[in-house]
């Protein structure tokens, strides 16, 4: 009947049989394609092993794309991180009415999931050339000295352009700060009331408490959450593609162009480009995991 009763070896194999479908699937459709791609990074056109593909990381076009991607990711994770932290603070510790806290929490859960093409459309409808905020600002006019209308607030006359790095930062922030709210809220909830009371009893001001008690406890969580935001921006493609039509050369956009038409002129260099991304992402997730482990001891309830 049950083979496990008979032989320890068969019993062990029997124990593993239930996970075979999953591992076969994952190997076929995730592990194998990924390794296959990365191995391409170390092959030349004839399939021989080589490191020359990595040389093109000195190519100015490639370097520029990495710099742009890093810029976008760092800016949005820091801006979104600080903004999100403040919002989480308002939700958890601020004396705001319940309805506001509920709306903020619910919308963070929703907006952290927004992204992709629709988000780009929303920002075009809001801050694009004919967007509604643009229209409002454009129509703030007064009559100048010569009688002609002067409209000093048109953002597009003042150097603003949605279809640029700044636009991407604005759009990414839409999902970045709610993501920060979601990840940092448990840490803020873990701040014990006793700590604040103890420091107040010892004569500490609010600022002193934050600088010397709360933030030192929170900083691994904050840094970890920001690293998570960094990763979420670094791998993003759809929003940037739909917003700028591929004119802003992020690494993801460059990889997309490489898949479509081998713009680098060498498929193997494309694989190296992709490998570079994964290496950065791997470091990112490793950093996040380490910091999360570090905070776990404080946040045990």
């Amino acid at each position, binding site marked *: 009947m049950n083979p496990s009763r008979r032989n320890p070896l068969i019993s062990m194999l029997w124990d593993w049989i239930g996970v075979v479908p999953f591992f076969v699937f994952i190997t076929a459709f995730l592990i194998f394609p990924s390794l296959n*791609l990365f191995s391409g990074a170390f092959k030349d056109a004839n399939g021989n092993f080589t490191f020359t593909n990595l040389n093109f990381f000195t190519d100015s076009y490639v370097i520029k794309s990495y710099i742009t991607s890093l810029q976008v990711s760092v800016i949005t994770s820091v801006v979104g991180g600080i903004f999100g932290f403040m919002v989480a603070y308002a939700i958890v510790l*601020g004396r705001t009415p319940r309805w506001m806290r509920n709306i903020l929490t619910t919308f963070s859960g929703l907006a952290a999931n927004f992204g992709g093409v629709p988000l780009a459309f929303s920002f075009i409808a809001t801050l694009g050339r004919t967007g509604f905020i643009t229209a409002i600002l454009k129509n703030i006019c007064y009559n100048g000295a010569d009688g002609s209308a002067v409209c000093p607030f048109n953002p597009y006359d003042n150097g603003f352009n949605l279809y640029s790095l700044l636009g991407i930062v604005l759009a990414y922030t839409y999902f970045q700060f709610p993501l920060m709210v979601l990840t940092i809220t448990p840490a803020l909830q873990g701040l014990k009331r006793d700590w604040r009371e103890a420091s107040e009893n010892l004569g500490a001001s609010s600022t002193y408490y934050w600088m010397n008690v709360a933030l030192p406890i929170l900083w691994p969580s904050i840094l970890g959450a920001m690293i998570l935001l960094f990763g979420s921006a670094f791998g993003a493609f759809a929003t940037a593609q739909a917003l700028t039509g591929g004119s802003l050369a992020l690494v993801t956009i460059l990889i997309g162009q490489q898949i479509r038409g081998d713009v680098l002129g060498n498929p193997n260099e494309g694989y190296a480009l992709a490998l570079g991304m994964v290496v950065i992402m791997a470091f990112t997730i490793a950093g996040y995991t380490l910091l999360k482990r570090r905070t776990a001891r404080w946040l045990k309830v």
Partner: protein
Amino acid sequence: MKKLFKIDVWAWFWGILALLYFFLPMYGTLDFSLRMQKGQISFLAYQTVLADPQFMESFRYSVIMGLISVSLSVILFVPTVYWIYLKLPNLRPVMEAITLLPFIIPVIVYVFGLIRTFSGPPFELTLTPFKTDILITAGYIVLSMPFMFRAIDVGMRAIDVRTLTEAAQSLGSNWFQVLFDVIFPNLRVAILSGALISFALVMGELILGDFLVRPALGPYMVLVGRDHAYEPAALAIISYALTWVCLGLIMYFSRGKNTQQLTGR
């Protein structure tokens, strides 16, 4: 007292700023989507979108692919996670790490790998639409894996897998009955959460459909966004409504637990 007042202002300031950031783009999109007819509010943009046969086709395609890949994903994950809880608890961290891989490998890199591996001989999975659909289904399952695993893992942790299994077996159930009559019903909410979030992900997915050249909703939206002004806003509203319904249902079914981020950006 003065200090308390100051803290309130601070919290209000950030709260209101966040609400503005949430609502202004939503309002802008809605406003824009209703202004296709000059000088008046109308649903013309929505009518145009809904009357476009290409929209209907891509919507249908994404719904069908979503249903297929979510069903397969549930069938793949529930037994696997169940088995790990029952027989191989040491494997759980390994599986958790594997299911997080789609966060480390950006989707654009992943699709690059799929194309390099499966488009040439011996697989040639991109030659016919049907074969490509097999590939894209596998891709959707992989992309939704972190959410599906998390949801089922949380559900599985909440029930006593071993006791339930032993009880069912001592009453004469076979493995199939244990899974479908005992484990599945006990995981209803978890499976539903995982399924809804994965479905929402497939509906909003751009990269797989775009680069494997299948008529999914994401590529259609990009196409419309390139040539039209008002229809994209209407499409965005439709897409948000879909996501909100899916996530709203999850929140309704699993009150108290938080959802995680999902979309392939």
